[in-house]
C-alpha cells in the first residue's frame, strides 16, 4: 500500500464570517423554526376569523394604531445601528462594535417598553373569546422574541466590553445581527395582522 498524500489545512484561517460560519447555519435553523411558528399563528388567526360572523367580534374595537405604529418605526430604525454593528464586527473593529451594540441596546429597551403600551391598547383582554386569544398570542410570541433579543444582545455587549474578546466573538456579533434582522422583519406581517386585518376585513 502506498503512502497517502496529504491535504494540509494548517494555513486556513481559524474562523470565518457569514454563511461560511457554522453559527450562521444554527441561526438559520432558529429562524426557520420561529418563522414557521409565526406563520402558523397567523394562519390560526385567519382560520379563527372564518368562524365568526364579524371580525373583530361585535363590541370589540380593533387595537389602537398609535403605539403599534410607533413601535414598528422604532424597530425599523434599530436596523441601522444593527447593520453598523454587523459591519464593524466583520472588520474586527472592537471600538465600533461596542458603540453600535450599545446603541442597539438603547433601541431594544425602547421597543420593549413601548410593547407594554401596545398590550394595553389591544382593547381586549386575552380571555374574552378566540379573537382576543389569538391577538394576545401573536403579540406575546413576538414579545418573547424582543425580550430574548434584548437579553442576548445585552450579554454579548457585556462580553465585548469586559472581555476576554477573541476573534470568534465577532462572528457571534454578526450572528446576533442576523437574528435581530429576523426579529424586526418578522414583526412587519404580524403588525399588519394585529393592527390592520381587523380594520380591512
Amino acid at each position, binding site marked *: *500500500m*502506498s*503512502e*497517502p*498524500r*496529504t*491535504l*494540509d*489545512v*494548517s*494555513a*486556513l*484561517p*481559524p*474562523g*470565518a*464570517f457569514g*454563511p*461560511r*460560519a*457554522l453559527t450562521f*447555519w*444554527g441561526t438559520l*435553523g*432558529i429562524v*426557520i*423554526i*420561529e418563522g*414557521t*411558528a409565526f406563520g*402558523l*399563528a397567523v394562519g*390560526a388567526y385567519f*382560520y*379563527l376569523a372564518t*368562524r*365568526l360572523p364579524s371580525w373583530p*367580534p361585535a363590541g370589540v374595537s380593533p387595537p389602537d394604531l398609535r403605539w403599534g405604529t410607533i413601535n414598528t418605526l422604532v424597530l425599523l430604525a434599530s436596523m441601522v445601528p444593527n447593520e453598523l454593528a454587523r459591519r464593524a464586527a*466583520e*472588520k*474586527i473593529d472592537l471600538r465600533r462594535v461596542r458603540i453600535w451594540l450599545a446603541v442597539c441596546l438603547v433601541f431594544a429597551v425602547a421597543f420593549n417598553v413601548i410593547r407594554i403600551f401596545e398590550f394595553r391598547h389591544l382593547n381586549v383582554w*386575552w*380571555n374574552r*373569546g*378566540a*379573537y*382576543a*386569544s*389569538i391577538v*394576545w*398570542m401573536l403579540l406575546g410570541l413576538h414579545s418573547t422574541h424582543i425580550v430574548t433579543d434584548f*437579553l442576548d444582545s445585552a*450579554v454579548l455587549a457585556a*462580553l465585548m466590553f469586559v472581555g*476576554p474578546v*477573541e*476573534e*470568534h*466573538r465577532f462572528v457571534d456579533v454578526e450572528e446576533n445581527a442576523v437574528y435581530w434582522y429576523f426579529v424586526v422583519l418578522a414583526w412587519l406581517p404580524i403588525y399588519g395582522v394585529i393592527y390592520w386585518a381587523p380594520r380591512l376585513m
Partner: protein
Amino acid sequence: MTAGELEALNRTWSDPPGFASWFRHVDHRTIGRRYLVTAFGFFLLGGILAALMRLQLSRPDNTIITPDLYNQIFTTHGTTMMFLFAVPVMQGLGVYFVPLMVGAREIAFPRLVAYSYWMFLFGGIFLYVSFLLNAGPDVGWFSYPPLAESLYTPSKRADVWAQLITFTEVASLAVAVSLITTAFKLRTPGMTLNRVPIFVWAQVVTSFMVLFAMPAVMLASTSLICDRLVNTHFFDPEQSGDPLLWQHLFWFFGHPEVYIIFIPGTGIVSTLVATFSRRRMFGYLAVVLSLVATAFMGFGLWVHHMFATGLPQLGESFFTAASIIIAIPTGTQIFCWIATMWSGKVVLKVPMLWVLGFFGVFVLGGLTGVMLASVPLDTQLHDTFFVVAHFHYVLIGGAVFPLFGAFYYWFPKITGRMLSERLGTWVCGLLFVGFNLTFFPMHVLGLHGMPRRVYTYQASLGWGDLNLMASLGAAVMACAVLLFLVDVIRALRVGLPAPANPWDASTLEWATDSPPAPCSFPLPPTVGGREPLWDNAPDQPVVVGLRRDVREVLVTHVLDAEPDHRKVFPAPSIWPLVTAIATTGMFIWSIFTPWGVTYGSIPIFIAMVGWFWPKSPTEGGTRPWPIAHRTLPLPREEPAAGGTI
C-alpha cells in the same frame, strides 16, 4: 503521525473519565449512544404498556385493567412510541453516524446536542413519574379538545401530555439544527453534495421536516395549556374558538411526523441494500429526490386524518389526491432497491433479513394507506382497529424493522463486538411472525367494526378469537425483543471482536476502528467517489494540519466541500445539563401557574449566560484572523500535489 501525536490527539478528544465528568460529556458518539440506549429503554416501557393492553383485550369482558387506567395506558403507549422512541432513536443514530459518515470528528454544536439529550431524558422521566402518580395523560396521543380542555379533563393529565411535547420538541429541534449544519458544513473534502451517503441525505431531509413540522405542535400545545391555565379560548366552541383548529395544527405536525420516522428508515434500508447487494445504489439521484419529494408532499396531506370531521368536498378531494400521489416517490425508492438487489449479489446476513422483513410489512402498510386515503372507506373505518393495524404496519414496518437492521449492522461499530448471526435470524423471524400474528387480525377486526381505544368488548360481538390471536402474537413479539436483549448482553460480554469493516461496506464510518478512537479518525480521510471505501484511490489524500491541543475541526463549503476554515470546538461542559435542569423546572412549574414561565425563565437565563461565557482564553484559537477574509484564496486554487481529490 507518531504514536505520541496520536495519543495527544486522542487525549484532546476524550471526554474525561469519572462519575462527575459523566455529566459534562459532549462527544457525539457518547451522546448518540446515550440517545440510542435511552430511546430503546422507552421502547421497552412502551412495549410493556402494549403487552398490558393486549392482556386486557385477550378475551371479552376482561376486568384486569380499569377503563381509567386503560385510557392512561394507551395514551402513554402512543406518546412514548412516537415522541420518546421513534423520533429520538432515529436522531440518535444520526448523532452517532452522520459525523462519522461525512468524515468529521464531531457533530456541529456538540453542547447543544448534549442539552438536547438531557431534555429528552427529563421529558421521558417526567411522563413516567406522572404515569406512576396516576397523572398519566389519558386523552389519546393526539389529545383532541374539547376532551382535553379543562371542562372535561380537570386534572393535570392533559397538561402532562402537552408539556411532554414541549420537552421532546425542544430536544429534536436542537438535534435537527445540529445534523443539518454537520451535513452541510463539516463534510470532508471531496464529499460534494452528490457524493453524500443516502443515510445522511435521509437525516438531512428528516431534520428539515422537523424544523417545519414541530413548531406546529408546539404552538398547538402551548395554546392548549393557555386554554387550560389562563382561560384563553382557542379551542373552545362556546367562546368562538374551534376544536378543529387543534386538529389542523396537530396534523400539520402529525402527518409529517410519520415521515420524520419513516424517512430515516428508508435511509437505513438504502444503506443496507447497497452494502449487502455488493454494489452501489441503483438510482442514487432518484432516491435522493424521492426523499426530498416525500418531505414536501408530507406537508400536503394532513387533512386526511380529518376526513370524518365533515370538511368541504373540494378539500377532501385534494387531500385524497395528495395522499395517493405520495405513494409515487416511495414506490420509486422501492423499485430502486429492487433494482439494486436484482443487479447485485445479495448476501443474506442478519441486517439484510430485516430489510426483507421491512419490504413485506411496509408494502402492506402502504397499501392500506392508499385504501384509507379514499374518503368513503376512511369514513367507514375511522377510529377502528383497521387504522391501528394500518399505522403499526407502516411504523413498525417502516421504522422498527429497518432500525433492528441498523442495530445489527452498526452494533459492531459502536461496541466493537459482533452480534450473533444465529440468534439474529431467530429474532428477526420471531418478530416477523409475531408482528403479523398481532396486527393482521386487527384489519379484520376493524372491518367488523371494533373501535380503537375501548378497554373491553362483549362476547356476543364475536371478536374474541381474533383478539386472542393478536394477544398471542404480542407474546411472540415480546419473546423476540427479549432474545435480542439476550444477544446484546451476550455480545457485550463474550461477543467476537469486530474488525474495522466487518461487512466490507463503503461509507466512512467503516474507515476507522470499531469502536472508533476518541478522535474518530487519526487522519481524516478525503473522498474520491460516492462510495469512498470502494472508490478511493490507494493514495487518497488525508487531512493534516489540524491542531492536536484543542478540538479543532475542518469546516468546508456547502456545495463542493472545499476546505474553508478551521474551527475550535468546545470542551466538555456542565452547562448543557444545568440549562436542561433549569428548563425542566420552568416547564413543570408552568403547568401549575403562568408565573412559572416568568420566574422559571430566570434560572434558564443564568444558565445560558454561564454556557456562553468564555471559559479559557485558548478556546478561540490564538492566531489573528486575516482582515480580508472575504477574498482569502481557497486552497483549491493551489492544487494539492498529485491531482484531484
